[in-house]
C-alpha cells in the first residue's frame, strides 16, 4: 500500500538548515495497523504529513497504492487526499460552526455528492462510532472523546485506503484513549490500513507494528506480540 524509499526532507529558513528526514525506507502493506513512535523532533509528524500528501518531500520516492506521489499539483494532491486518505488529528480539527453530522459529511461535499445522500451516509458513519444521537450537536457541545469519534467518522466516510492519525489520543484521558483505539481496531479489522503517530507506549502497543524514528531515521521496526501490553524500550 505504501512504499517509501530514501525519503528526505529538510526545512530551510534564512538562518538555519534543518534536515528532518534523512532517508526513510518503509513499506506498509494493505490492512496493516502501524504506529510510528519517536520523541519530539524525530521527524514523525513530518513523515506523517508526507504520507498524507499534506507536505512534499525533497528526494526519494513515495508510492501510495502504486501511484507515485511526487510533484503533484495542489488540485491533484487535494484529489488524492480526498480519495485515498482519512485524517485524524490530535486536536480533532472539526469545523466549530458545523454540527457533528455536517462535519462528518464534509469530505463527501468535495466529492460532489449531493447533500441528502451526504447526510445519509454521514449518519451511517456517526452510528458506527456510536454518536447517532449527537448528530445535531456542535463540537463545543461534545466531550473530547466524542469529538475524536466524530473526526474518525469523518475520516472513514470516504472509505479511504489509509487512515493517518496524528497523536489521536494526545488530548484524551486514558479510558477515552482506549475507546478510540478500540474503534481504530474495528476499522482495521475491516481491512483499512491504519497509521498512528504517538509517543505513548500503551497506545503504540495496541497496533500491530511499531516503527521507531530517531533523528530522521528509522531506528526500530518491531511487530507487537499479541497479549503483550508493555514493549521493552
Amino acid at each position: 500500500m505504501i512504499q517509501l524509499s530514501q525519503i528526505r526532507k529538510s526545512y530551510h529558513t534564512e538562518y538555519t538548515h534543518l534536515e528532518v528526514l534523512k532517508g526513510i525506507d518503509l513499506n506498509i502493506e494493505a490492512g496493516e495497523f502501524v504506529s510510528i513512535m519517536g520523541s519530539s523532533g524525530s521527524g514523525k509528524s513530518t513523515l506523517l504529513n508526507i504520507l498524507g500528501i499534506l507536505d512534499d518531500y525533497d528526494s526519494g520516492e513515495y508510492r501510495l497504492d502504486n501511484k507515485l506521489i511526487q510533484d503533484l499539483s495542489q488540485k491533484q494532491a487535494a484529489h488524492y487526499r480526498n480519495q485515498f486518505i482519512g485524517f485524524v488529528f490530535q486536536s480533532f480539527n472539526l469545523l466549530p460552526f458545523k454540527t457533528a453530522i455536517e462535519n462528518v459529511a464534509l469530505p463527501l461535499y468535495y466529492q460532489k455528492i449531493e447533500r441528502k445522500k451526504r447526510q445519509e451516509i454521514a449518519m451511517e458513519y456517526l452510528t458506527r462510532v456510536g454518536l447517532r444521537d449527537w448528530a445535531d450537536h456542535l463540537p463545543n457541545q461534545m466531550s473530547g472523546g466524542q469529538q475524536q469519534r466524530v473526526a474518525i467518522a469523518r475520516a472513514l466516510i470516504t472509505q479511504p485506503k489509509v487512515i493517518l492519525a496524528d497523536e489521536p489520543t494526545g488530548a484524551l484521558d486514558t479510558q477515552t484513549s482506549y475507546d478510540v483505539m478500540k474503534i481504530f481496531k474495528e476499522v482495521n479489522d475491516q481491512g483499512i490500513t491504519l497509521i498512528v503517530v504517538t509517543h505513548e507506549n500503551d497506545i503504540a502497543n495496541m497496533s500491530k507494528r511499531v516503527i521507531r524514528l530517531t533523528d530522521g531515521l528509522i531506528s526500530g521496526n518491531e511487530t507487537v506480540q499479541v497479549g503483550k501490553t508493555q514493549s521493552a524500550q
Partner: protein
Amino acid sequence: MFDFDKWQEIFSSIRRHKLRTLLTALGVFWGIFMLVLLLGAGNGMQNGVEYQFRDDATNSIWVRRGTTSMPYKGLPKGRRIQFSNKDYDFIDEQYPEAENLTGRFYLSGDQTVVYGKKKLSFPVRGVHPGHQYVENSRVYEGRFINKSDLKDIRKIAVIGKIAKKELLGEQVDAIGKEIKIGGIVYTIVGLFEDSGGDNEMRVIFIPMSTAQTVYAGTDQIHQLMFTGGDMTVPEMKQLENKIRMDLAAMHEFDPKDKRALYMFNVAEEFETFQSLFFAIRMFVWFVGIGSIIAGVIGVSNIMLIIVKDRTKEIGIRKALGATPYSIVTMILQESILITAVAGYLGMIAGIGAIALLESIESEYFRNPQVNLGVAIVATLVLVISGTLAGLMPALQAARINPVVAMKSD
C-alpha cells in the same frame, strides 16, 4: 453554473458568522447609502434654488429706484430718483433688445376690492403688457392687458387665480364680471397663474395708464423690468451697464452711485448659482467617492481578517480534499454575496431616505433625486473592489500548507 451546494455552504457560513458578516455589510451599506443620499440631497438643493428662479424669467433685469449716495455735478446726495413714463419710453425706443419692457405701479397698500357683497383686500399693480413675460404669469383664461387698454385708460383687470377664488368663488365664470377696486368699477378680462406661489396669485393687474391716472394723477412708475431674449450673461451685463449710464445722465446721478438705482440682473444671479451648483456637485462627488473608498478599504480589511480567521478552517478543508479553486471561490462568493446584498440595501435605503427628504417643504430644497445608474455603478464598484481586495488573501490562503494552516489559531 449555479452550484446549489456551494451556496448552501456559503449561507451556512454566513449564518454562523453573523458579526463578521454584519461588519462587512455595514461598511458597504454605509458607503452606498451616503453616496446616494449625498447625490440626492445635492440634486434637491439644486432643484430647490432653480425652482426659485422659475417665478421670473431667468434672463430678466429689474430696475428699482434708489436715493443718491454721492454728490454729483453740484447736486447734493440724498436725492430720491423717480421713474416716469419718460424713462419707459426712452428705454422702449433706444433699446429694442430689451424685450417685454414693463413698468410696475404699486397702488399704496392693499386695495379694498368688492364683488357683490364680498369685500376683500388685494395688492393691485399697474403694469404694461410685457409684465406677464417678465413675471412668468400664465394667463389661463381670457387675456392679459394689451396696448389698447393702456391707450384708452380702460378700467379692466387681470386677476390672479387665488384672488379670483376668494372673490368670486370657484364656480363662477369670472370673465366680464365687474369688481370695484377702491370704489371704481373694473371689468375682469383675464385670469392668471404664477409659479411664484400663492401670494403672486392674489395680485390684481390693471393697465399702467389707468393706475397712474385714477389713483395718483401722475405719470410716475415705481419699477421697470424687461427680459433679454436670447442674450448671454455678458451681453445682459453690458445692456445693464448701458442703461445705467443713460438713466444716470437723465436723472443726473453718478453712474458709479449704486444706491441711486438698483439693477437686479436675474441672469447674472442665476449664473452665480449655476457655478455654486457646480461646486456643490464637485463636493458631493468628492465626499461620495471618499465614502466609497472608505467602504472599499473597510471591505478589504474585513476580507483580510476573514481569511486570517478562516485559516484553520481552510487547512482542515484542504486536508479533507478541498482544491485551492474551491477555497478561493468559497471565500469570494461569500464576499460578493455580502457586498452585493449590502450594497443593494444601501442603495434602497438611500433612495428611501431621499423619498423621505422629498416631503421636506423648503425654499431651497426640492424634489431630491438620484441617478439610478450612478447608484448601481457605485454599488458594482464596491462589489468588484471588495472582491479584488479579497482575492489576494484568498489566493494566499488557498496556497497555504494545510498542516501549517491547521496549527494556526
